[in-house]
Structure formats: structure tokens, C-alpha cells
């Protein structure tokens, strides 16, 4: 019964969005977009809640519940199970699509024709995905045989962070669908100007904030759950989320220029199309089964073909309109080389170069495999070496850009405004290099520039107006830029200073790694519920005082006979330390491995700063408008 209602509701949304999207090609029949959008939104919302209800009730008459849930699973994971699979996550994806259309329907944009076209195109996207859901991935399929218990959820995926990671990421991915609809609506109604950019601005930021947080959360989860100190693996699926982020970052900077200066119209439109295309390409790569990773759902070639056809339709329509309207969009204003707009445009190109590098690294192995029948692996080295010079240029432009005036500026002004902070950063990094540990030239360059960026952005954020109060709209931008500087700083510092050392130690030995001194205090036999263990105690010392105590274990399970090493981890603000040990047979020492991972928490902090920066930019914007 529930499945029946669910399917009817999805069909209602399918029809409503089809009717709405007809406005793209016909002008005779006027459609109340608000009404129809509300219908699609509420029907999808209810069917999604029904699906969650099936999971909460552990209703094993449905295939999706059988394959993804278990009656003894904690409630929160039962709920999360609803979108921890292909069908449910697709329903959630459509829900987010309709939420965006619904909210946009109630926005205060006065230009009726534009609004009509935007919602019509958004409905076309909703229609496509709903069709996809109904015909290849129906979540409300009944089981053919009676089952009394479910198969459970992948244990790696039973994690609170992972329950919220997909919804947040989807809001980001899907948010860019509305950006594309804006581009289409703007082109059809010849309304790609500074007002259009002002309308688009908050939506582009919302999508960007969620995508930033989503990627950050994924990386955070990988660090705590999967890895041994790794937070980014250049895995194709991670890259698939990074690509729309890069395009989206370039996009909203362009929207900024368009809003202020009324230039770069066609370029902004192109970026809007690109950003959502990369969201779709990511979806295609993840769900078609072309890539295999922790993220892939059980694959089905029909799904891959469907997304590809859908991607083709969206792209052909978008670029078709673009080819027709593009030449008419741009205004004749010229761009001066030394100006804020040209430095933002420069950054745009750098972001797109990074995007290109990532795109190539992700698809190249698939290409060689397909055309040359050769399997190659593209590893982190490729990305690090290729992205290094681009990142350096990006940092330089990010330092200069915000301190350059719109339209036209003098080079001397810019250098004057930042040289003190640059010298300060250089002195700090050099001092560090001399007193603590020697650094290579590339490390010094990256660290100095990112530190300068942090300082310069802080200074820009604290700029005051004539009444000595902080200029609030600039605050968001500065926060986000501080975040980015801190991100590069902590990534480079982590890469440079991460240490790993293996010792053969006896009780009372002192172990030295960098400036950390560990004392091997004792070894004892302990007993757990179903295992016997050897537990060692190590003290992290500062002179004679004990700062921290690590107790790595070796556990011996009897049934089945299994030996495991339990790592002892202490996480601090500045550094994470891991201690692992094992005991070779017939020996009087233990093998100890110590990892020191500095600056990890600053990576998360910087992601949060970027997101808060985006958020405060939106908030202050609304306050200003009121």
C-alpha cells in the first residue's frame, strides 16, 4: 500500500514537472508555476518520508529495505539507510531539486517571464531525474519472496558523519542545477546583466557552501574511518566532487564581476553550464559502474546509459541556446590589465587549469584502457607536481586581487599595500626554517605565500569605514580567503612535517621522534571480553613530566584465532599522534611505530572558515538589501 502511494506521488511529480517544462517551447498556455512546483515538491517530500517510514518500521516487504537495513540496527542508521543506497539517494536528490525550485518560486524577483523560464528549465531537470527514478531505480519495489530479516548496511557506512555527508553534498551538487536554470532563463529572456547576477549571487553561494562542507565532511570521514593519516586520496569519486567545486568557485567570482561591472556575460553563462555539467558527469561516473570505489552503488548499465542520454540532452539544449545567444550577450566594456576584475579573471583561468588537471587525471586512465588496452594508475604525485605551480600563481593573485581597485589601478599601489605583510610572513617562515627544521624552496614559497594570504585577508576583513565599524560585506570574503590560505598552509605543513618512525624497544627505553620524547613504561597481559591482550604503556615526556599516555594493544582472539593491533591515538589541536606496536615471536623487544601528523585539525578548520565566509556573505547581503 505504502509503495503504491509512493509510486503515485512520484508519477504526479513527473507529470507536473513535464507540464511546467512545456513553457520552454510554448507561450500560449500559461501555467501557474508556483502551484505546480508546490505539487511536485510536496509529492516528492511525502514519498521520501514514506520511504523513511518503511526503513523505520523495517518493512521487509520492500527490496530496498531488505538489502539495506536490519531490524536490530540503531534507529538513526535505519533512517540514514533510506538514502544509503542508489534508489533512496536518487529520491533525496530529486527532493533537493524540488526544494530549490519551490524556494525560488517564492523569491521576490519581479521579472515574471524570466522566473517562468527558470522554473520551466528546473522542472525539465526534475522531469529527467524522476523518469530515471521510476524506470531504472524504483525505490518502492516489493520483494518476490517473503523475507524476515534484512541484509544490513555496510558496516563502514554505519557512521553518523556518513549519514549526513550525502545530503549535504547533494544540496551542493543540485544547487548548481538552479544556477544552470538561471543561465537558460537569462539567455532566453535576454536578461544576462548585473541585475541577473545580483539575483543569482545568493543561490550560487548556497550551492558553493554546501559543496564545500560536503567535500570537507567526506575527507574528514576518510581520515577518521579509513585511513592511516590520509585525508585526500585523489580517488576518482573525490575528484568528481572537486571538479564542480572548482568550476563553481570560478563561477561565483564571475558573478561578482558581472554584478559590479556588467561585463563577462557569456563567460559567466559558460561557467554556469560547466558547473552543473560537472555535477552530472560526477553522478554519471559514480552511478554507472565505470568507476569502482567505496562510493559506488551496485551498478547497472541501464542507469549509466540513462544518465548519459540525460546529460547529452541538457548539454545540447544549454550549449545550443548559448551558441545562438552567446554573441549578443557581451557588453563592449574593456578590461584593464591591472584591475580587480582582471585579477579575478586570472584566478578563474587558474581554477579552470586545476579543473583540467583533475579532469585529465581522472579520465586519462579510463581512456588508455579503452583505446590502448593499457591499464595505468594516476597517483598523488601527478596531482602534486602538476598543481604546485598553479597553486603558487593562485595564491599570488589571491593576495593581490582583493587589494586592487575595480577598473584600473597602479602596480605600485598594490605592492605598497601588501609588502609589509609579505615580508613579515617570509621572516616567520625563514625563522622557522632556520630554528626548527630546514625547508625546501617550494615549501618556503608555498608556506610564505599562504601565510601572507592569511595575514592580508585578516587585514582586509578588519578594514573599517568612516564610522570605525567593520565593513560587513567584505568580512565574508575575507573569512573565506583566510580559510583558503590556511588550507594550503596546513596541507603543505602536514606534508612537510608528518613523521613516521619504527623502533625496536625494551621497557624503560626512550624513543625520540623529532622533538617528541616517548618513554616505554611497561608491558602487561590483560584480558578483554573475548580476547587476551598485551598492553604496552608509553609516556610522552616533557623533561620529567608525563604529558600524555599511549596504550597500544595486541589482541589475541581465540574464536577464530585472530591477532589484531589496536592503535593508540591522541588528537590535539596542533598534532595527531599514533602509536602502534607488535611483538615478534621469541624476542625480548617490541616493534613500535610512531606517526606524528601535524596541522590536521587546521585542515578541517579552514574548510569550516570557508563555509562560514560564504554564509556570512549571504547574511550581510540580505541585511544590506533590506
Amino acid at each position, binding site marked *: 500500500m505504502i509503495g503504491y502511494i509512493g509510486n503515485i506521488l512520484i508519477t504526479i511529480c513527473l507529470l507536473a514537472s513535464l507540464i511546467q517544462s512545456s513553457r520552454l517551447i510554448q507561450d500560449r498556455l500559461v501555467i501557474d508555476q508556483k502551484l505546480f512546483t508546490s505539487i511536485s515538491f510536496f509529492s516528492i517530500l511525502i514519498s521520501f518520508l514514506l520511504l523513511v517510514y518503511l526503513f523505520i518500521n523495517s518493512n521487509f516487504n520492500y527490496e530496498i529495505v531488505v538489502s539495506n537495513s536490519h531490524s536490530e540496527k540503531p534507529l538513526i542508521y535505519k533512517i540514514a539507510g533510506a538514502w544509503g543506497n542508489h534508489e533512496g539517494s536518487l529520491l533525496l536528490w530529486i527532493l533537493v531539486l524540488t526544494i530549490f525550485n519551490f524556494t525560488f518560486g517564492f523569491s521576490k524577483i519581479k521579472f515574471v517571464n524570466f522566473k517562468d523560464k527558470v522554473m520551466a528549465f528546473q522542472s525539465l531537470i526534475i522531469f529527467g531525474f524522476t523518469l530515471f527514478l521510476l524506470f531504472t531505480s524504483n525505490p518502492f519495489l516489493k520483494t518476490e519472496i517473503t523475507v524476515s530479516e534484512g541484509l544490513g548496511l555496510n558496516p563502514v557506512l554505519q557512521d553518523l558523519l556518513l549519514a549526513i555527508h550525502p545530503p549535504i553534498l547533494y544540496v551542493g551538487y543540485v544547487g548548481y542545477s538552479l544556477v544552470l536554470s538561471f543561465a537558460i532563463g537569462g539567455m532566453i529572456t535576454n536578461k544576462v546583466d548585473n541585475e541577473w547576477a545580483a539575483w543569482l549571487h545568493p543561490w550560487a553561494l548556497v550551492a558553493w557552501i554546501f559543496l564545500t562542507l560536503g567535500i570537507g565532511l567526506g575527507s574528514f570521514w576518510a581520515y577518521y574511518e579509513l585511513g592511516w593519516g590520509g585525508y585526500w586520496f585523489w580517488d576518482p569519486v573525490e575528484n568528481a566532487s572537486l571538479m564542480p567545486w572548482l568550476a563553481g568557485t570560478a563561477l561565483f567570482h564571475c558573478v561578482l564581476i558581472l554584478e559590479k561591472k556588467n561585463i563577462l556575460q557569456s563567460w559567466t553563462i*559558460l561557467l554556469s553550464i560547466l558547473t552543473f555539467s560537472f555535477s552530472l558527469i560526477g553522478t554519471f561516473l559514480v552511478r554507472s559502474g565505470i568507476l*569502482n570505489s567505496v562510493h559506488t552503488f551496485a551498478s547497472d548499465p541501464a542507469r549509466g546509459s540513462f544518465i548519459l542520454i540525460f546529460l547529452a540532452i541538457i548539454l545540447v539544449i544549454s550549449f545550443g541556446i548559448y551558441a545562438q545567444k552567446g*554573441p549578443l550577450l557581451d557588453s563592449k566594456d574593456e578590461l584593464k590589465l591591472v584591475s580587480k576584475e582582471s585579477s579575478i579573471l586570472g584566478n578563474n583561468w587558474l581554477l579552470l587549469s586545476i579543473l583540467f588537471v583533475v579532469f585529465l587525471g581522472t579520465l586519462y586512465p*579510463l581512456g588508455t584502457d579503452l583505446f590502448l588496452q593499457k591499464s595505468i594508475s594516476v597517483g598523488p604525485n601527478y596531482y602534486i607536481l602538476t598543481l604546485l605551480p598553479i597553486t603558487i600563481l593562485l595564491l599570488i593573485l589571491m593576495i593581490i586581487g582583493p587589494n586592487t581597485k575595480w577598473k584600473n589601478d597602479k602596480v605600485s599601489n598594490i605592492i605598497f599595500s601588501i609588502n609589509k605583510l609579505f615580508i613579515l610572513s617570509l621572516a616567520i617562515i625563514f625563522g622557522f626554517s632556520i630554528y626548527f627544521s630546514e625547508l625546501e624552496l617550494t615549501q618556503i614559497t608555498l608556506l610564505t605565500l599562504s601565510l601572507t594570504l592569511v595575514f592580508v585577508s585578516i587585514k582586509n576583513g578588519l578594514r573599517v569605514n568612516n564610522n570605525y565599524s567593520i565593513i560587513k560585506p567584505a568580512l565574508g570574503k575575507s573569512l573565506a580567503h583566510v580559510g583558503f590560505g590556511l588550507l594550503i598552509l596546513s596541507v603543505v605543513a602536514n606534508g612537510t612535517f608528518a613523521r613516521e618512525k619504527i623502533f625496536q624497544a625494551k621497557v624503560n627505553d626512550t624513543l625520540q621522534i623529532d622533538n617528541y620524547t616517548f618513554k616505554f613504561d611497561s608491558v602487561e597481559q590483560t584480558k578483554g571480553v573475548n580476547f587476551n591482550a598485551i598492553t604496552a604503556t608509553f609516556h610522552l615526556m616533557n623533561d620529567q613530566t608525563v604529558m600524555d599516555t599511549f596504550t597500544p594493544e595486541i589482541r589475541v582472539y581465540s574464536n577464530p584465532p585472530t591477532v589484531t593491533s589496536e592503535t593508540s591515538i591522541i588528537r590535539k589541536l596542533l598534532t595527531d599522534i599514533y602509536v602502534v606496536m607488535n611483538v615478534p615471536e621469541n624476542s625480548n623487544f617490541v616493534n613500535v611505530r610512531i606517526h606524528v601528523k601535524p596541522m590536521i585539525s587546521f585542515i578541517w578548520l579552514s574548510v569550516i572558515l570557508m563555509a562560514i565566509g560564504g554564509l556570512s556573505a549571504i547574511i550581510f547581503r540580505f541585511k544590506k538589501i533590506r
Partner: protein
Amino acid sequence: MKKSNFKYLIPVLITILFLVFFSQLLSRDVTKLSSQLIERPVPDFSMPSLFDENNILSSIDITSSEVALVNIWASWCVPCRSEHEILMLLSKTKGLDLYGINYKDNKKNAIEFIKELGNPFKKIGTDNNGRSSMVWGVYGVPETFIIHKGTVIYKHIGPIHMNELKETVLPILDKLL
């Protein structure tokens, strides 16, 4: 006028190019990918053993078996779960040694997986970051290699189900054993 309009058509052309590429990707059969390793000796590798940190799994283990089957798996990989009973069946075959490579996994979960579903392997190596198994050209998990006297004979990408077992894997093993 016409000349300047041409650049607005460039994205369309690039798009078509990529769409063709993507559709080619879709139409290929990932389970029948060729491997550079076929007819070549087992690649050199060594990695810590899953159950005993002091022990290692290396190419020497595999070449010392007359006929070996190397399976690359992970606890997070759903198809591996469904494939596991086939591996349990294969482990009863006389003269065939199964080796497991646990790929990009969390140790605790990997051990739980084996405890829950049984251990078909003579030895399991762990590769937390996926670096040591790079020499195998790991494309995705699960992947299975059949090795005869140290030479790679066959590579299978994706899970082995009953019909693949009957149609391809068993005939190859029958010849060797």
C-alpha cells in the same frame, strides 16, 4: 560576423566529443579487460599479513603454490560480500591455494568480515592505502587473478558469480589441476 560566432560553437563540439567517449566507456565490458600481467610473472610485492603483523604476504608465497588464486577484496565492497561464498567453495578445491589482498580497508572491519563469512584464504595481505597492490594494476574491487607456477594466466574484474565460475573459472582450473 560568422567568424566570431564560431567560437560559441566550440563548447558544443567538445561536448559531443566527450559524450562519445563516455558512451564508449559504458559499452565496454569491464569484466573482460585485458591485463598487462597476463602471461607475465607475478609482480613483485610484499605487504603485512592481516592477522599477524609480523608476517608478510609476498610474491614468494604466491609463486611457491602450484596453482594460486589471488583475490583482491575489501569489507566495504558490497559485491565482494556476494562473491565470498564462491571463494569459500573454491577453497575446498585440492591443489589450489587462495590468497587474499585486502584493499584500502579498515583492519577491524576486514577482520570482522572474515569472521562473519569465513576464511577461504591461505594467507591475507593488507594494503591500507592501495600502494602495494598498484603493481597488480588494481582497477576496482573485487578482482581475481589465477596464477600457474608463478605466471599470471587469467584476470577477472568484478565479482565471480555462479555462472562465471562454471563458464570461465572452473574450465581454466580444470586444465591446470
